[in-house]
């Protein structure tokens, strides 16, 4: 058996600021195969973003290691592109320039100028944002900004795509539309994806596996649920699908029965 593509091995994270220490993650281990779509779900504040940032290399774990494609992750890099919760596009660059910045940086040695332009346009096409390519982020809607963020991440051809509640701030219709786009892109490119969400339907619809985290402090992985639904998945048909309903209620039970947020009661 070869090593898994991405593996998190016994990650502990303790934040210490001043005299106080906050244990956030406790013994988190996870393996992800190439092409897997994994969702991480858990109540707000349990440490999901922290976990994602550790995989991204933006935060260093107190203990434990992350391996990606046989190498230890110890710094951020374009092989682990992140789509941040608040899009984090650079407001002084146009939509095109935001993606182009990433393309120019990542492919400076391997692609010609014309090829980099082509590649930028291809990724904008993938998220259907070509029409607004010369607009600035402030001039497009929240959903569009998030699509550009996804295009920028995809354009880096990352080994693993990290999404931190990518649709959290969007209205339900826009969110559904983007979920469909992400599924389509995943079907086309077979990316390895790690996505944080707090939306149960989103997790079941998109994922191969759902990682459910217990509440903090010292959050652990409580359970991992396989979602054995065939792809392509269509949300309307799934609404009455027995497997879908079973998975959905399993996640709901985990979140709202066994690991209910105490203060939310």
């Amino acid at each position, binding site marked *: 058996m070869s090593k898994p593509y991405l593996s998190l091995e016994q990650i502990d994270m303790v934040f210490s600021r001043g005299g106080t220490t906050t244990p956030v993650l406790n013994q988190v281990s996870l393996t992800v195969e190439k092409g897997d779509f994994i969702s991480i779900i858990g109540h707000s504040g349990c440490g999901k973003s922290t976990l994602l940032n550790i995989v991204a290399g933006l935060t260093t774990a107190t203990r434990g290691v992350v391996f990606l494609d046989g190498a230890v992750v110890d710094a951020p890099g*374009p092989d682990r592109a992140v789509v941040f919760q608040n899009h984090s596009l650079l407001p002084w660059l146009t939509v095109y320039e935001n993606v182009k910045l990433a393309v120019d*940086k990542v492919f400076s040695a391997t692609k010609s100028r014309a090829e980099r332009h082509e590649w930028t346009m291809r990724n904008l096409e993938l998220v259907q944002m070509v029409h607004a390519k010369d607009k600035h982020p402030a001039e497009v809607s929240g959903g569009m900004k998030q699509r550009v963020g996804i295009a920028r991440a995809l354009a*880096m051809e990352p080994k693993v795509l990290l999404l931190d509640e990518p649709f959290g701030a969007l209205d339900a219709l826009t969110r559904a539309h983007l979920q469909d786009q992400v599924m389509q892109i995943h079907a086309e490119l077979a990316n390895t994806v790690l996505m944080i969400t707090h939306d149960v339907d989103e997790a079941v619809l998109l994922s191969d596996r759902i990682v459910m985290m217990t509440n903090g402090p010292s959050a652990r992985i409580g359970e991992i649920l396989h979602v054995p639904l065939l792809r392509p998945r269509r949300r309307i048909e799934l609404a009455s699908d027995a497997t879908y309903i079973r998975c959905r209620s399993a996640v709901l039970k985990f979140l709202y029965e066994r690991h209910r947020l105490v203060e939310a009661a």
Partner: protein
Amino acid sequence: MAVSPIPVNKKPYAVKIMTLAVSPKAVARRSLAQWLSSLAGHVLPPLITLAFLMVFWEIICSSPTASVPPPSRVVSETWELIIHPFYVGQGVDQGLFWHILASLKRVAFGYCLAAIAGIALGTLVGQSDWAMRGLDPIFQVLRTVPPLAWLPLSLAAFKDGNPSAIFVIFITAIWPIIINTAVGIRNIPQDYQNVAKVLRLNQFEYFTKIMIPAAAPYIFTGLRIGIGLSWLAIVAAEMLIGGVGIGFFIWDAWNSSRISDIILALIYVGIVGYLLDRAIAFLAKTVTRNTASA
């Protein structure tokens, strides 16, 4: 109830027809009228205030023994200066345009040097904790030194009026530029830093592509304060160094008791200072149009 729906229905129709009937020309005329009225709303109040002030000034200074001339006498006594701004004479006997130009040149020199050095130092201070700890206290002390207090020292160093005045402008304008740039750099959102890290931007790329644009609004705040201070300082500095320049013109007028000339010069100084401020504000608006966080 059902008997009289007609008048109720009629009204929107009538409205619709009326709106349709308005020709494009009429729309243009109306928006022109709107524009004129908004212009009047902005221009009239200051004009009225100004007129009141003039009348008030005229009245209180109208006695022949008043030490300050009334506006009517200012205009009549400075008429030659007003209509011949480009007059060229001997030595410091020049039209007001040349005096102001000479002052502007000194300001431009000193200010540009201050902008370059200020942004560079501000970046250093904003980026490194050690530079911050080491330099910030020094900056905080030095920035409170009044501009003119630097003049004797710079005269000693440069042994010449012109570079000394430029140095005074430089040292006056640089502190707000340094401090605001440093604050801007410190306030770069974590998100942008994360983007830079994921892309593995090198120092130079980070500086040009993230740092400067992200800090631009702060830098421009510093630049704007700096230009105001420069203009304040140049007039004072020129009074002491002499030569062509609006500051020395005022000093010279005082020495020969031409109070009306002083008043005219003050008005010009005010207007130029206002224009300088507007120019930097305009530049800031143009450059940072898209920098406001999305």
